[in-house]
């Protein structure tokens, strides 16, 4: 009889190609760090801290976008959700004690989940495409942020700000990096390790097949946006933590860059494919690029050109590697 199991021959190739996909981003990142150290021999713990601090909100935004995109959607309200949490935190925490500020942070995470759930339910029930829903709720949440705080202001207790500042464990392991890893892991691992992750990947990959396998697509979509909302709220808190204030417009920069980070990090916009490590590293990479431009002392007018080129080239390299593998 014929052998239909085909598991034997392709095994090694698959092993390697899977690993390259997994290791590609970290390898690229390490290469970039080494390049940076070459450009700027003084590269030290101070810069590592700068990198982690700068990437903190973007990493959260990228995490939020990743969760939603994996489930087959896209969230163009990420920036506004971040803004709402940011101004809410800054206005509530202004005169709060450290303990109270932690309580407020939890409250804001819950509110973020609620906002995300509203996005998700609207998408699930109305049958309006994700893009339209989140584009418009993006305007709505942006307006809400302006209602909460008309101009930049507010504040937070020093102890709260110090959570992400400095490096308590080791100079080379800044607190911001620890916060980033712990928070994103706390959001992502429960998804990844539970049935929820399965639901998200399945409904993103092939909603029809998922439904026929017994998945309630609407539940899956709502869950994805809800977790995305939590990650956005964490992003808003991170913004408060790193800037000490609330700014109603500060979130706007994160909508597109979160999508860029997710895509550069190997998440397919078609849904169902990708992980969390890639986008987070992509967020670090996107923070490293402007840093290198400063170190190189490049005419800032060329900065934008170079940044655009680099973003394209990174993705191109990824595509080329897959292309060569497929041709094999």
């Amino acid at each position, binding site marked *: 009889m014929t052998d239909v199991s085909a598991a034997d021959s392709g095994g090694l190739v698959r092993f390697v190609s899977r690993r390259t996909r997994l290791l590609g981003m970290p390898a690229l990142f390490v290469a970039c760090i080494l390049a940076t150290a070459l450009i700027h021999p003084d590269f030290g713990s101070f810069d590592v801290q700068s990198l982690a601090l700068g990437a903190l909100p973007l990493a959260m935004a990228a995490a939020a976008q990743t969760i939603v995109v994996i489930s087959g959607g896209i969230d163009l309200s990420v920036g506004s959700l971040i803004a709402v949490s940011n101004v809410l935190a800054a206005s509530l925490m202004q005169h709060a004690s450290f303990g109270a500020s932690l309580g407020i942070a939890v409250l804001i995470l819950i509110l973020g989940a609620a906002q995300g759930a509203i996005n998700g339910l609207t998408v699930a029930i109305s049958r309006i495409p994700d893009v339209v829903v989140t584009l418009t709720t993006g305007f709505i949440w942006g307006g809400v942020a302006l209602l909460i705080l008309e101009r930049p202001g507010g504040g937070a207790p020093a102890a709260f700000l110090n959570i992400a500042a400095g490096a308590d464990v080791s100079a080379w392991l800044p607190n911001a990096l620890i916060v980033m890893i712990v928070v994103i892991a706390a959001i992502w691992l429960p998804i990844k390790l539970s049935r929820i992750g399965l639901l998200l990947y399945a409904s993103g990959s092939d909603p029809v097949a998922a439904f026929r396998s017994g998945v309630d697509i609407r539940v899956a979509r709502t869950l994805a946006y809800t977790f995305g909302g939590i990650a956005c709220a964490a992003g808003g808190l991170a913004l408060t933590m790193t*800037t000490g204030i609330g700014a109603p417009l500060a979130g706007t920069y994160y909508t597109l860059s979160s999508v860029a980070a997710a895509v550069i990090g190997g998440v397919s916009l078609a849904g169902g494919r990708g992980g969390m490590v890639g986008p987070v590293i992509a967020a670090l990479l996107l923070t490293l690029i402007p840093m290198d431009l400063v170190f190189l*002392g490049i005419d800032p*007018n060329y900065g934008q050109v170079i940044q655009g080129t680099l973003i394209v080239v990174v993705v191109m390299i990824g595509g080329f590697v897959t292309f060569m593998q497929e041709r094999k």
Partner: protein
Amino acid sequence: AAGKYIVGVSNTLIGNGWREEMICSIKAEAEASGLVSKVIVANRNGGPSEQIADIRNLISAGANAIIINPSDREALNPIIKQAADKGIVVVAVDQAVSAPEAYVLTNDQVDYAKLGAKWLFDKLGGKGEVVEMRGIDGVPADADRHQGFDEVLKNYPNIHVTSIFTGWALNKTAQATKDLLASGKQIDGVWTSGIDSTVVDAYQTAGKPFVPVVGADNNGFIGQLINLKDKGLTGAAVSNPPAVGGAGLGLALDVLQKKEHPHVVKITPTVWDNTSEAGMDELKKAYNQKLDPFYSVAINVPPYTHYTMEQILACKGP
């Protein structure tokens, strides 16, 4: 010139003519002073978080002085303190920061609005319908100007105001102005937060009689004030020189050479109207037919800046 200082610049709004000119003035001043070996500009669209990152990178790149156009009053304080602790001179230009370590050299935005509004309300004889064309909601400079506008408005109970946000965008302003003109709403005067010539253009294409307009010292608007005076355009330009950038560097270099300086310097704006002799003279003197319409005509801020027109137009640093 064999300068010895490295100068860092942090700017978080790009594609904006005023900011471009500000950066050019910094480069020009660096060139003219002969004291600077390198100007590093960290330039991108962003908020306080991005700006903090940029300042950290400038510190790391070894800047002796950092000129910032701050995106927020408070948010940068911790990093400014860190920079000052390392002996770096930090100058905030255009908008203020509250950090005591920083030198602040700003155009007084509250005054900017006050002067223009006062001129307009007086011109209207203290009564009428005024449109306030603001910038972007949630941005500090816009909030400051609105505050100044409101303070003056309190003294004119018979002036009624409609506020519109233009986003400092040409086409949005054009559409909003045309919509207002088409709506048949009574308009007696327009105060703008900088997108001025577009409003005048909208009146022209709509074929409506001009009403008094207040704008900034943009080259295009100043040209209109001069050339359209015969056609009935009255208006005033309030100065808001982007050369504060270069002035900030001048100040920083003074401090680096151990000259004493007050920490806060406010440049009070001036008003040039086309209804008075003196104003018209100033306008004609300032107008530069060749310059881009959205570049400010005020290229120097004495006594801080030392460069020539050619140098700022070349926009080249050491």
